[in-house]
């Protein structure tokens, strides 16, 4: 290949990368700018926006709310997911295939197609405007992916290991604890990351289900702050956006290796 062609291809890729990166300039610069406005400007460097986020009466609450909702929903999702995936992997029962394909189909239905009925249903069973309701909904929404992913992981663990444990007198649950749990790590890490990120970033479900500002997660808090057009503190808004990205980034850093090793291909690629 000629040098010219290589140069052109590199330029093309650089332009694509810039297109992807440039929009983030505002968040990155304004978060550390004492005089931030709605557009990009050279910052007067200061960490004041972050201080304000944490000392403000309302904003730390948003972060805590997001953490409560996402951590609980992820924990519930994984707990149900690992039991269910074990059953789907190790038991052959009537309707198993149908169930697997049904949840695959459910996974492709996006939230706007069922959100109206979901809201009314939640009002009926008195679970609207509460952490519990939102946590249950979020855990359920991410469950199909978790089940597929963990089933693939458990399929890869040799059944003989469990049988051996039974021979040694373990109960079925004992064998799950001793054999499956230690080996299911990579899949569990991947499922945890996908679920946490989906719940953490969700906008529509909390927007519809929650009415009390006390319960708002960061996504809704940022939206409300942005929509209050005349009194927006742009610096704090940008700092909040940065803080909003930290937990998923940390999780990604910790679990990245697991993600690559798991059978994520099966869950996404189909």
């Amino acid at each position, binding site marked *: 290949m000629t040098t010219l062609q290589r140069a052109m291809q590199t330029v*093309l890729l650089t332009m694509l990368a810039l297109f992807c990166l440039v929009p983030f300039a505002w968040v990155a610069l304004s978060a550390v700018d004492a005089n931030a406005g709605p557009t990009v400007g050279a910052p007067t460097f200061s960490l004041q926006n972050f201080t304000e986020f944490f000392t403000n009466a309302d904003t730390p609450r948003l972060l805590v709310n997001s953490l409560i909702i996402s951590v609980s929903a992820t924990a519930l999702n994984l707990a149900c997911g690992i039991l269910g995936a074990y059953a789907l992997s190790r038991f052959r029962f009537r309707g198993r295939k149908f169930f697997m394909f049904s949840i695959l189909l459910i996974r492709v*239905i996006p939230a706007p197609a*069922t959100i109206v009925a979901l809201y009314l249903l939640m009002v009926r069973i008195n679970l609207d405007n509460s952490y519990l309701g939102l946590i249950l909904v979020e855990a359920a929404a991410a469950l199909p992916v978790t089940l597929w992913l963990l089933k693939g992981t458990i399929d890869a663990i040799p059944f003989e290991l469990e049988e051996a444990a039974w021979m040694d007198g373990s109960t079925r649950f004992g064998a799950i604890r001793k054999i499956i749990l230690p080996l299911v790590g990579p899949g569990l890490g991947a499922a945890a990351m996908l679920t946490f990120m989906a719940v953490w970033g969700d906008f529509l479900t909390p927007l519809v289900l929650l009415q009390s500002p006390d319960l708002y997660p960061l996504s809704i808090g940022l939206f409300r702050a942005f929509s209050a057009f005349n009194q927006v503190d742009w610096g704090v808004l940008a700092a909040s956006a940065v803080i909003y990205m930290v937990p998923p980034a940390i999780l990604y850093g910790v679990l990245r290796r697991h993600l690559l090793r798991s059978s994520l291909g*099966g869950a996404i690629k189909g």
Partner: protein
Amino acid sequence: MTSVPVPVARPGRRRRDRGMLPLLLGPSVLLIAVFVVAPAGYGIYLSLTNTQLTGFAARDPQFVGLDNFRYLLGSDDFLASLGHTGQFVLFSAIIGQTVLGMLAALLLRRTWLRGKGLFGAAILLPMVVPEVVAALTWASVLSSREDGTFNRLIGLFGGASAAPLQEWPMLSIIIVNIWRGIAFAMIMFQAALEDVPDELIEASRVDGAGAIQVFRYVTLPLIRGPVFLYLLLTTITTVGVFGLVYFLTQGGPGSATQLTSIYIFQHAFQYSQIGLGSAASVILLVLLMTLGLTYVRLAKVDV
């Protein structure tokens, strides 16, 4: 597919703890049934009533048969929202994301290329940041102020300042959604391209084929299946896009960017027409289920 085959079934031993099945699978089935399947069913029921959030019909909803559907299919507003959704899917997902994602996947395969990791990470970033942050960044880029990033860029080329979100609202949200989805397309195509043997491409190069010919006649036919599945999947997800667009335009100006997902939200929760919103949801649900079924049938997954 990377999944490992299930060990050969041994029914005798498997059946040992049959009683545990409800205990193991029960919680998952219950959660999915109550919070995913029941709302879908309830939505179909609601779509046949004149339920409202407030007012007279809120207390005493009536069964109205197919009235909501009749109204929607004769409503210019709703049909326009379907049209907007179609445009949005066609230009942002099927054309924009696919072309740029494929380009990124092909370029990142070049063996001579340095800094693959950095390029990959840059392209990945728009997909992994939360929807709200993505929308916020673009609100700044597309700001109507003269110092907005977009206006500065066209200023460099001597153009006059504009208010993209007001003047070209549809084009704006299409570009924002392309930006957000390049990475997903890239990942899917990278996976597909791994199955294309290098020798085959080498051979056609030796035979004198140019880069475009190689792609058109060698690479593309080999990855046709995964590309088609990607198109189905991205269509389904793009129809469901809500937050990104709602944050930026709230469906406006007027109803220029009122996608069906936004139509549903506004009618149900802002105008309190639950029955109508549900009927619109059911129409969307049916369309997506059809696409989803095709996807599930064609995606060759082992269970």
